[in-house]
């Protein structure tokens, strides 16, 4: 009988699901809404549809991310730090530092050769250290979020963004825009400002190579460049930087399941029922 493992990562902004057999057979990314349980169902259904599998076929499911407790069908909950470590390590065996820039927070993790966490640090207090900062500025300059990276690469003179608060920085960008500062320079300045904040956090850990960037931040080429300059090292990015947490969750589920089998202690499974849950 074929074994399938699923990882579902409910982040503050995006929800991600991965289904694993020997490798990834399906992955889905969708926005996290206020009703996380309902979205967990939706994303899981979509992943199952893509994989052409019934829910019953899932051997073990691990949930992760801020909303991990809101996945009623998950067999186990593991924090996103451990899951990112496992997921990244499976893609980059020489990875030793992971920087995750998500929608509402950023974190840095150091790992060993087995993908085990050795240390971590999180910024969950300030939007200026997260992807939200770039989102707000994208609105201000009238660009789509996904355009920000490419546009910033056209800059030769990144603007100095001195405000350390997202809201004040937004006002600063608006006034610099009115002064006629080119948009690429403004965005490059914003990336540099965010990278500077993230780099300061990362440096509180002992930076070890290779350094991998995950989360939505990994999709922004301008931010990758700025972070690479700030940390003075090459930054590697997974092919899909948003799903490393869900991938790690699925891999950890597989490890747990197989370990339990070896010990002849089968893991208890939650009922495989996708119920719509009304939170309010």
């Amino acid at each position: 009988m074929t074994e399938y493992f699923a990882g579902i990562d409910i982040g503050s902004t995006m929800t991600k699901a991965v289904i694993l057999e020997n490798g990834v057979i399906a992955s889905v990314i969708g926005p996290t809404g206020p009703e996380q349980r309902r979205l967990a169902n939706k994303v899981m259904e979509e992943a199952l549809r893509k994989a052409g599998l019934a829910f019953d076929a899932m051997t073990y499911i691990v949930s992760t991310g801020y909303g991990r407790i809101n996945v009623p069908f998950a067999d186990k909950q593991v924090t996103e730090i451990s899951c990112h470590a496992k997921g990244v390590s499976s893609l980059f065996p020489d990875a030793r530092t992971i920087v995750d820039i998500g929608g509402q927070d950023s974190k840095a993790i150091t790992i060993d050769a087995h993908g085990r966490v050795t240390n971590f640090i999180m910024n969950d207090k300030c939007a200026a250290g997260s992807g939200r900062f770039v989102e707000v500025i994208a609105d201000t300059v009238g660009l789509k979020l996904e355009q920000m990276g490419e546009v910033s690469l056209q800059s030769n003179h990144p603007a100095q963004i001195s405000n350390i608060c997202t809201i004040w920085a937004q006002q600063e960008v608006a006034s610099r825009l009115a002064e006629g500062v080119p948009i690429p320079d403004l965005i490059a300045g914003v990336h540099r400002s965010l990278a500077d904040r993230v780099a300061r956090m990362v440096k509180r850990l002992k930076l070890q190579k290779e350094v991998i960037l995950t989360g939505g931040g990994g999709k922004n080429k301008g931010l990758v460049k700025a972070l690479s300059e700030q940390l003075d090292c090459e930054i590697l990015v997974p092919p899909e930087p948003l799903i490393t947490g869900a991938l790690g969750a699925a891999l950890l589920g597989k490890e747990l399941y197989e370990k339990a089998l070896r010990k002849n202690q089968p893991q208890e499974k939650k009922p495989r029922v996708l119920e719509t849950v009304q939170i309010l």
Partner: protein
Amino acid sequence: MAEEQKKPKKRMTATQAAASIGPMVKEFIAGAVRAKAEGKQKLAYTFIVCHHEEILRALDVLPVWTENFAGVCGAKRDSERFLQRAESLGLSRSLCTYALCGIGFDQWREELGQMPPEAPWGGMPKPDFMISTGQILCDPRAKWYQASQQYMPDVPIYNMDLPYPLFEKDQDHRDVWGYYHKYIVNELRGLIKFLEEQTGKKMDYDRLRELADLSDRTWNLIHETYELRKAVPCPMGTGDAMNTMVPINFMMATQDSYNFFLNLNKELKEKIAKGEGEVENEKYRLLWGGGLPAWFALNDFNYFNSKGASFPAETTYRMIAPLYEMDIPETKDPVEHLAWRWLGYWTFWYDKARKRPGSEPDVERLINFIEEYKIDGVVMHEAFSCRTWHVGLIWQLHQLGKIYKPIPVYVVTKGKKEKTYRELPSLILESDIIDITSYSEVDTRNKIDVFIETLESIRKNRAD
């Protein structure tokens, strides 16, 4: 609903002694209000860890612990209105929030001519005088009462300076501490003179000697009692110690404090005999390595406990050291003794720190706890408004990781597996002492979850 959200979930204590503290604090706050109304005793605003309790009590002065009251406001999640009032007076939120809370409260009480509405546990009465001391480490403790005095211009301040020799790697502190001693004795005698003038009483030096002796015996008893927490499983954690700090810091030089620790000692011995731990199945032993706690979130300790983590030791509020291990000169003069005890306490770890390359007294203290209490990880709290500890904590943790690597692990370097040693894992929690706007329960608990997973992962990877 809003009221329900405002109230914190009650923290469960492991010991009966810790559970008895809440009513005790409530009573001594209420007692101060009663004393003010009766007018029989003089009331002094003052700070903890000044080694002056014996002097106050010998002259029948009732201490009103302003840091304690701010902590109570924080624990009751009722500090915000006093903080906001201080802000409206032009004081920045980035200053010490204990001080802001106290200043906001004082200004409000003086403006009304009575206690602010629904003042926590009856509120803080107006003092007859204020005794401040910044020591070396905490400038708000010198400036706070000056700010409060703007609203109570008729209340005098005595400011004590209590220095101690700073750590020097290549100099024995005993070479210079005689100068410090002379200076501190002078400051304490100045306090006695000030109090004699304020109370109209003369110091009874026999009584002062008796009280100093009572404190000394209490210090040794506290040390012996806290050492019982080395037991596995640990019978009492830091969560409880944030309660039992009350008789150490607010009740010294009283028989009640001594009796409290006699009872706690007995209770802990009984728990140890029965194999009862703070946590039912103790998996991890953690050190609270510093920082004042977030008083509004003490049930985070219960959350650690729910993950199998116990806290057998903490540096915070353990403001005693065994006197019989202190190398201080003997004297029959109680004032001189208090000054020696002060110097003995602050220099307690100096000799040990000098022996370990790269160490410092605070780091040496952490190492001592880690080894003696079989510690698996260190947790610290960066309270943004406590500048005194904020910088030092991070430095201590950094230095600890640099000079002390007790965990054997395997690492793979260029495909080759090698045994090496790594530092103890650590967690830095971030919020404040009483400003709840700095705190997120979800984020804090997420960090705790990750830390527990890290401890588990490191344990699995141990090479011994």
